[in-house]
């Protein structure tokens, strides 16, 4: 038997097992959080791993009755949906222009856009607070959260769409132009249908990033536009053991996004690999 065949058999067993072990390892914190959400606060903090216990929905009732979960969840939904739509409405034409009509500065612009992600958010906290509260009067509004989430995600969205658009052969566009297709026809009939998968995965990832964003949504809101990130943040306690309640709030906050991700796994993987997996 050749070493190649042995190695192939070894690989047949080894890699799937390794993949499962790693998957379980990464999934364990989520599993533990969900499990803890059904424990009482007293059970939740017991140092030993407690797999068997009397489950309770007390934390979930507490969350909806005392912590106004739905208000935060609705705000998260509104801001994430509109921020995604706004980001795509700016990102699609920008990526299209750079993919099909590149100039000699296109690469520099792309790198510059990405470089804005390198600025630590804390560095502009005070100017942002001052600007939005004292000068623009936008503090704690949905509009501000949507704007900020859009601006944060715009570079990554343009990069992703740029990568997808680059995959479309230019010849198809040129053939369309020769047949007299207008710009909007080109976009609607050729580019978007061909890049639909990429567009969907970009939108999905953008939505997830918006939903999970915590730094700005915690700091630029008070009550009216506060999202689920703020609800989770407020359930951390320095003196008091409320891990059951915290786990319930966290589970309810990540739940919708996990369900969404579950149904759109293929698009998500494609999005995360920038189109390398088809």
């Amino acid at each position, binding site marked *: 038997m050749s070493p190649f065949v042995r190695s192939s058999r070894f690989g047949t067993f080894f890699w799937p097992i390794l993949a499962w072990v790693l998957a379980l390892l990464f999934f364990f914190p989520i599993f533990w959080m969900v499990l803890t959400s059904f424990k009482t606060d007293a059970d939740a903090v017991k140092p030993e791993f407690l797999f068997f216990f009397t489950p309770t929905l007390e934390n979930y009732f507490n969350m909806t009755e005392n912590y106004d979960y739905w208000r935060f969840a609705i705000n998260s939904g509104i801001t994430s949906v509109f921020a995604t739509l706004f980001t795509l409405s700016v990102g699609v034409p920008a990526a299209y222009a750079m993919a099909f009509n590149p100039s000699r500065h296109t690469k520099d612009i792309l790198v510059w856009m990405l470089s804005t992600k390198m600025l630590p958010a804390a560095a502009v906290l005070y100017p942002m607070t001052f600007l939005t509260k004292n000068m623009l009067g936008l503090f704690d509004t949905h509009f501000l959260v949507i704007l900020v989430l859009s601006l944060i995600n715009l570079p990554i969205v343009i990069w992703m769409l740029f990568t997808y658009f680059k995959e479309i052969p230019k010849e198809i566009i040129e053939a369309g132009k020769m047949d007299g297709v207008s710009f909007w026809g080109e976009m609607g009939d050729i580019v978007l249908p061909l890049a639909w998968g990429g567009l969907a995965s970009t939108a999905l990832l953008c939505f997830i990033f918006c939903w999970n964003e915590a730094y700005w949504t915690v700091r630029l809101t008070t009550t009216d536009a506060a999202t689920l990130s703020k609800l989770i943040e407020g359930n951390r306690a320095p003196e008091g053991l*409320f891990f059951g309640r915290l786990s319930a709030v966290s589970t309810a906050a990540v739940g919708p996004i996990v369900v969404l991700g579950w149904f759109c796994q293929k698009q998500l993987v494609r999005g995360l690999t920038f189109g390398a997996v088809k």
Partner: protein
Amino acid sequence: MKTLRLSGLAMAVAVGLGGAASATELTIAIVNNGHMINMQKVAEVYTKDTGVKLNWVSLEEGVLREQVTSDTATGGGQYDIINIGMQEAPIWGAAGWIEPLNFGASYDVNDMLPAIRNGLSHNGTLYAAPFYGESSMVMYRKDLTDAAGVSVRDNDTWSNIKAAAAAIHNPDAGIYGACLRGKPGWGDNMAFITTVVNSFGGAWFDKDMRPTIDSQQWHDAINFYVDLLGNYGPPGSEGNSFNEILALYNEGKCGMWIDATIAASFLEVDGVAYAQSPNAGNPVGANWLWAWAMAVPAGSPNAEESKKFIEWATSKDYIKAVANHPEFGWGSVPTGTRSSTYAYPEFQAVAGFAAAEMAAIESAAPEATDLKPYVGVQFAAIPEFPEVGIAVAQEMAAALSGAKSVADALAASQKAATAIMSEAGYF
């Protein structure tokens, strides 16, 4: 049609504005602890009686400080009432960032525990009303000390505490002699460590506000702390703070715990007894003092309504409202603020720790002395302290974990603290 739509819109706006003008709304930033969460329910009666709508924003302690600081620094307006601690109250009061508080005679300001009142005042003016207060004390398992034939006394010596910890330490049975804070943070490990240093006669700064972290007192105190917790504490103590130790204690794994008096109300194991904080010859500053209090930012447009709410929420009537609330009772009343709370027989009946807690709070000494020329026990009431405290906290955790020697950790702490204080212009 267009005119009709515009008229409808104008009417809706007018109705909306009218509605907004008729009822006062107060936005309150609170730290997430049991007492503040309970207040949200108890205060429903306040809304019912006054019509004032209360919007609660619960935040983690660190984020609360950051938000309140940035709100106050940008002119306020985000919150009408804020939760602040004893470290901020005198500094912010002096800076004019929060409003002075003057209440009516029925409020009985003299009923407030003097140490707490002084800690929340600047030049005799109260700037924040205490919602609950705490000091630190020893919470030990008397069943274990009795079985081991040792005792823990009020204001014991550290050497006796160490001997008691050694006697009850039995890691094979899952019992550790002493559980103490080790997690880095100015409000975490440094709160406890500072009281140990104080009790050895040390302080953070000298009279010129130069750091004295490389002094002999600090060396003695930190060597003792690392020795005690390293030998008789649970493994991984450098990751333990209040919540982690509380969980261990309620599992029956701690023989002794020196921490916030509020912990006593969370303890669920049998055989717990209390003693005043130990010292190494200097009892001044050996037990800390802290209060979460309510203040009104200077920029609040609803300052008068806010003060009225604070007057109610920190009054004797509020204590009774919690005690009589169907969901709570005397075991849930906020403690550490008023003498009268400790006089209620109903409270004494459910709070076995009451006498020890009050004694600890009353003996706490936040005022400046020759030995400790700044206000505060486990902190210095200066704006730079959190930065200094965090830098030193990391070094102390490194010493505890064995990553650094005590001497190296103290030398690095002194260097960092000197740089921060020098940059701030103290010398």
